């Protein structure tokens, strides 16, 4: 039996990590990979410089439309010229500061709601407060602020308002419907199921049509509601159905033992839901709700079809109204595409991060 001598760890002979090793493993591993790298490389090298030139180096950054006509590249001057119109739509020019303040307030609220530290009961109160302040400030008509009717609210503030307000209102409705679908009472269960399946089976456009065309017919004579409120109601009902499904998934994941334990402690149905089931279920479905928010945010672009000019509609209005700048509509589209992308991408990254956190805390 030979004696045992310990061997100290040595570094690996051929590097298996580090940039060179990575390139070898991922780009040049065998002939198929190398061929792919070469082909893609050729295509990218021929396209990217031209794209770069059009977007940045040859682009026209300021000047009038003559400069843009004369230039070869992208006409970002149109964005400089029109960005206030694109972002704020028909909101009166002097009152833009109000829309800006309101939007920043709402954005701050949304960001705060995303941090764990703020998941407390007073968050609901804060939402209500901020939304009321938002509506008051945008509308004006008091303390010397000029009254701006809801028809003129447009652009990015309208997008964010529609998305956040509809999600905020849809949330309690969705919780109710999710609980209803899991209830033991057949009538309640069927009503909730019918609602969800009905809404999920039809496109948002038909719901918006219902809101804008059918609403005047459904209400008694002389009962007129703002187009904004009607559309908001439509989006809220739509978002509530999808959110109800997400929340229902979370409710299903709570083990039955939790409810049984609560029952042995003497808690009533509503106490159990409020204190035991919902806190756990909702914490679990935060990524799903974030996805809902992203979808709703993108869906607000549809309200242009029912004559509310949020960001996409405002851009269309800004570009189509001025014949001089019409040839440069694509730059305008790219500008708002960038805005949407920034918002949606950050929200989706955040939701992925939250999901990773939740999974980490579940592993033992």
């Amino acid at each position, binding site marked *: 039996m030979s004696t045992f001598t310990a061997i100290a760890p040595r570094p690996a002979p051929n590097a298996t990590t580090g940039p060179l090793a*990575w390139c070898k493993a*991922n*780009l040049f*591993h*065998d002939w*198929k*990979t190398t061929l*792919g*790298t070469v082909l*893609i*490389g050729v295509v990218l090298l021929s396209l990217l410089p031209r794209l770069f030139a059009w977007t940045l180096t040859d682009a026209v950054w300021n000047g009038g439309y003559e400069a843009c006509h004369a230039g070869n590249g992208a006409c970002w001057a149109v964005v400089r010229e029109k960005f206030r119109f694109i972002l704020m739509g028909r909101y009166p020019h002097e009152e833009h500061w109000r829309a800006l303040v309101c939007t920043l307030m709402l954005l701050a609220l949304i960001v705060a709601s995303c941090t764990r530290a703020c998941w407390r009961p007073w968050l609901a109160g804060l939402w209500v407060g901020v939304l009321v302040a938002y509506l008051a400030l945008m509308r004006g008509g008091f303390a010397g602020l000029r009254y701006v009717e809801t028809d003129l609210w447009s652009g990015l503030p309208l997008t964010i308002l529609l998305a956040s307000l509809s999600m905020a209102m849809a949330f309690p409705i969705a919780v109710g419907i999710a609980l209803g679908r899991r209830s*033991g*009472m*057949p*009538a*309640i269960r069927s*009503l909730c199921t019918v609602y969800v*399946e*009905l809404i*999920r*089976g*039809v*496109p*948002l*456009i*038909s719901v918006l*049509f*219902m809101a804008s*065309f*059918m609403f*005047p*017919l*459904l*209400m*008694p*004579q002389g009962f007129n509601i703002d187009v904004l409120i009607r559309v908001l109601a439509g989006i809220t009902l739509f978002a509530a159905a999808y959110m109800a499904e997400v929340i229902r998934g979370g409710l299903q994941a709570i083990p039955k033992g939790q409810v049984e334990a609560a029952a042995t402690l003497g808690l009533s149905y509503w106490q159990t839901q409020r204190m035991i089931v919902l806190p756990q279920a909702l914490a679990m479905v935060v990524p799903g709700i974030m996805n809902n928010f*992203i979808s709703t945010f*993108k*869906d607000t*672009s*549809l309200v*242009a*079809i029912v004559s509310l000019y949020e960001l*996409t509609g405002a851009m*269309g209005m800004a570009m189509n109204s001025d014949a001089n700048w019409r*040839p440069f*509509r*694509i730059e305008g*589209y790219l500008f*708002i*595409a960038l805005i*949407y*992308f920034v918002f*949606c*991408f950050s929200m*989706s990254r955040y939701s992925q991060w939250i999901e990773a956190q939740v999974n980490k805390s579940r592993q033992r």
Partner: protein
Amino acid sequence: MSAAPLSPPKQRWSWRSQAFRALVYQVLAVSVIALVVWFLAHNTATNMRQRGIQSGFGFLLGTAGFDIGESLFAFDSGESYLRAYLVGVTNTLRVAVLGIVLTTLLGTLLGVGRFARNALVRGLCRVYVELFRNIPLLLQLLMWYLLFTELLPDAASAWIIGPMFLSKGGLNFPIPVWAAGHVWAAWGLLLGLVCAWFLRRRARQRFEASGQPHSMVWLPMAGVLTCTLLGWLLGGAPTAMDMPMKGEFAIENGGALTPEFLALLVGLTLYTAAFVAEVVRGGIQSVSLGQAEAASALGLSPVQSMRLVVLPQALRVIIPPMTNQYLNLTKNSSLAVAIGYPDVVSIANTAINQTGRAVECIALIMVVYLSTSLITSLFMNWYNARVAIQER
């Protein structure tokens, strides 16, 4: 001595009984809903009477009075509203079916590409998914429409791709002139499919009997192609094609796809493909690594392991969300109203503006989409039940 079985105690109707409370709640809920529905219906009836609008679906038989930009079958303004609706439905189906096929192909390639060896391929797939997922579909459709109507050349200087012309007027391509030979070819195709099924069955039996692998894919495919070709030959081998030609103002003859259709198809396909790619990626990831390891420890080749072990399990996870995406594509085709493609929502919109019968028209739209959803859900449930992994 055994006592006679006791009957269960009689139901006590008091507030403390669970069943009684449940009944009360349900009766309350149903009556509230019924009341609301009655209220709304009453208002609608009053309002429509006041505006002099008739209710009922009789208007469908009336004259439409408007033209439709494109349709699969002949339509002019003298036809009925019902026919107009049918045109809308076929237009929606046309773009939906084609879109579903294309998006499945593209999305699967992108989803599988996320696992490629080549880091460039992986990166490009990732960039595609993030880019197309985070921009609203309406914006993408508007951009594609702009591209197809402004950046393409006029018909006079159309781009020529082989026998096809691409211009502001759309894509013009040669289509075969319909002749008897094509009917023969179609029968040949059907016969070929039946032959292929038999060939596969025989190959599988021979494989099981002898252990030697027999071609289960290439030979049946060759069979289908041969039968189709035979049918075509027997029918007189018709080769006459309706070629598009440059006319005075536009491209004439040949089959045509309008820029609206193209923009809608391209926009829907590229947008939904990003989501399909994520579904496929999730499905492949859901099969645990141990399964592939066990398969290779048993000596199966990578192709065999994918075909016999990984893919069957991955498909069970992929199919439900995939059908969801198909439904989303069909519903999203309703955005056609923004770019002027005459789908069913677009035509309903025109009908509402002309007749004022919002309730009936919207109801018709909802019926179309709801029946699609229902059929797909039924298929989904049947499929899930059939391939469910048996557990204890």
